[in-house]
């Protein structure tokens, strides 16, 4: 009996988690005229007008593609730069190694807000405002990724490298054929965080991007609510467009994403 109550509570909670998403979809297909006293659960005359208005108001497809491209690029870059640095710190011996690693960790502690103003000036001086490069620049390398991957590389038995060295393999071969395949779980964790970080990023795009062609979804959506203060169906249509791609990715990779997040907590 107690078990049943707990179960019912958890299921009810899950409904609370899902319902806002359903409500978003319902609102987005409610016609303007029926919005005033709030949408109803059953929409009597569903319409895609809000989506049409959205398409007219901003290049939403391009913004969606921007978000995906930047997130994929930033994930790829962080995996490459991070795993290489991880190998360097875990396997190579060079002077000042610990000091340099300490500098990497120091950048991890500095919050984005400290960097936003000078980074903005830097981009302005280099005339890189309103470019993909500006969006991508702060996320090419992440100290968090380097740290996590270094732990993983250190856990790979050194005997494997030694055996490969005797067989005549160089650093590049050891890195690509021995180390990389063995640190796949850590790579997955870094990929999840890099992708989510870029996909959700808001403050930096807000500062550095002005023209709609280079906006990402969070920024595009936030400008939407200024334009359509009372037309919540349009704002919710934009929300639907930005939820669907990430929800599809999530459904496909759900197990890996949750495992990747859980992995950080255990360490």
């Amino acid at each position: 009996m107690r078990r049943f109550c707990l179960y019912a509570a958890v299921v009810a909670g899950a409904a609370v988690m899902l319902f806002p998403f359903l409500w978003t979809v319902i609102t987005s297909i409610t016609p303007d005229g029926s919005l005033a006293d709030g949408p109803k659960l059953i929409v009597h005359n569903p319409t895609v007008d809000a989506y049409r208005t959205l398409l007219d108001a901003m290049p939403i497809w391009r913004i969606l593609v921007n978000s995906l491209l930047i997130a994929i690029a930033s994930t790829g870059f962080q995996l490459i730069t991070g795993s290489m640095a991880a190998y360097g710190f875990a396997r190579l011996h060079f002077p000042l190694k610990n000091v340099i690693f300490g500098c990497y960790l120091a950048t991890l502690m500095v919050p984005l807000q400290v960097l936003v103003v000078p980074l903005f000036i830097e981009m302005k001086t280099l005339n890189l405002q309103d470019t993909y490069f500006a969006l991508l620049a702060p996320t090419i390398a992440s100290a968090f990724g380097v740290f996590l991957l270094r732990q993983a590389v250190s856990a790979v038995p050194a005997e494997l490298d030694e055996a490969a060295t005797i067989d005549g393999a160089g650093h590049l071969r050891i890195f690509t054929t021995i180390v990389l395949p063995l640190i796949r779980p850590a790579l997955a964790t870094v990929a999840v965080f890099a992708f989510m970080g870029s996909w959700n990023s808001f403050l930096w795009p807000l500062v550095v991007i002005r023209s709609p062609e280079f906006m990402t979804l969070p920024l595009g959506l936030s400008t939407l609510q200024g334009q359509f203060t009372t037309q919540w169906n349009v704002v919710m249509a934009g929300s639907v467009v930005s939820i669907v791609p990430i929800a599809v990715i999530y459904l496909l990779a759900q197990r890996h994403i949750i495992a990747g997040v859980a992995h950080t907590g255990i360490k």
Partner: protein
Amino acid sequence: MRAKKLGWVLFFLLPSAIPLVAFTLVPMVSSLWVSLHKWNLISPMQWVGLDNYTNLLTDPTTRQVFLHTLVYVVGYLPLVYAGGLALALVLNQRLKGRAFLRATYFLPVVTSWVVVALVWKWLLNPANGLVNQILGFFGVPGPGWWTDPHWALPAVILSSAWKDLGFVMVILLAGLQSIPSDVYEAALVDGANAWQRFWRITLPLLSPSTFFVVVISLINGFQVFDQVYVMTGGGPSGSSQVVVGHIYDLTFRYGRAGEASALSWILFAVILLITVLQVRGQRKWVHYA
């Protein structure tokens, strides 16, 4: 031989070192420099020494935005921790549809803050939002939420907790699963009841995961911005303005980049201090098995 070795070091490190220097280290140093100047982003900088810092520390607005940020953190953390722990405990048992339930609770975590803020702004719309409609159905007059100075921060806290609940649940689930089952078996043999097992075994052995959640939540909580900017814009009349929102306004609304930089360093110092205190204090309550 030496040159070849150095070549490999550069090969492996430069791809990360160059962007980190260019886009983190250089801005970091120049931010310190800017914080010692009066500057509106356009006309030349004017050296003012530590004036920005002393002005900020005596400015009542600074106190206010720090207070709001603190209220946010204090409201948010117990909510997500208690909720996440309860969920983790239930979903750690063998239940039908457990994987589906976990996945459902985690869905908001992958949704962006801006979307979450917009959806909740709509749900909490005072006039025709769903929440007030439901409250009205039960005869409870709903508050003005983000239009009411007393309810703006609670509205932000509520939506943030909704989004992060699944994250905390996943971290705590991983922690629960790493507790060896023989500890529970031994406790059962000794006749410990469920309540005792929870307080004497589960919570202490979960403390490393709890520590992780608390540290991360405090670091992220003090940097809260997206959901506040979208939901309330810091209003009404500054009643929900947080530190990062104030930094943004100082720079891009009032053209006071020097003070904004100084404030960002004060925030950094506060976060660093809190984190260091926690790492120091963990010995008292975190038990590593």
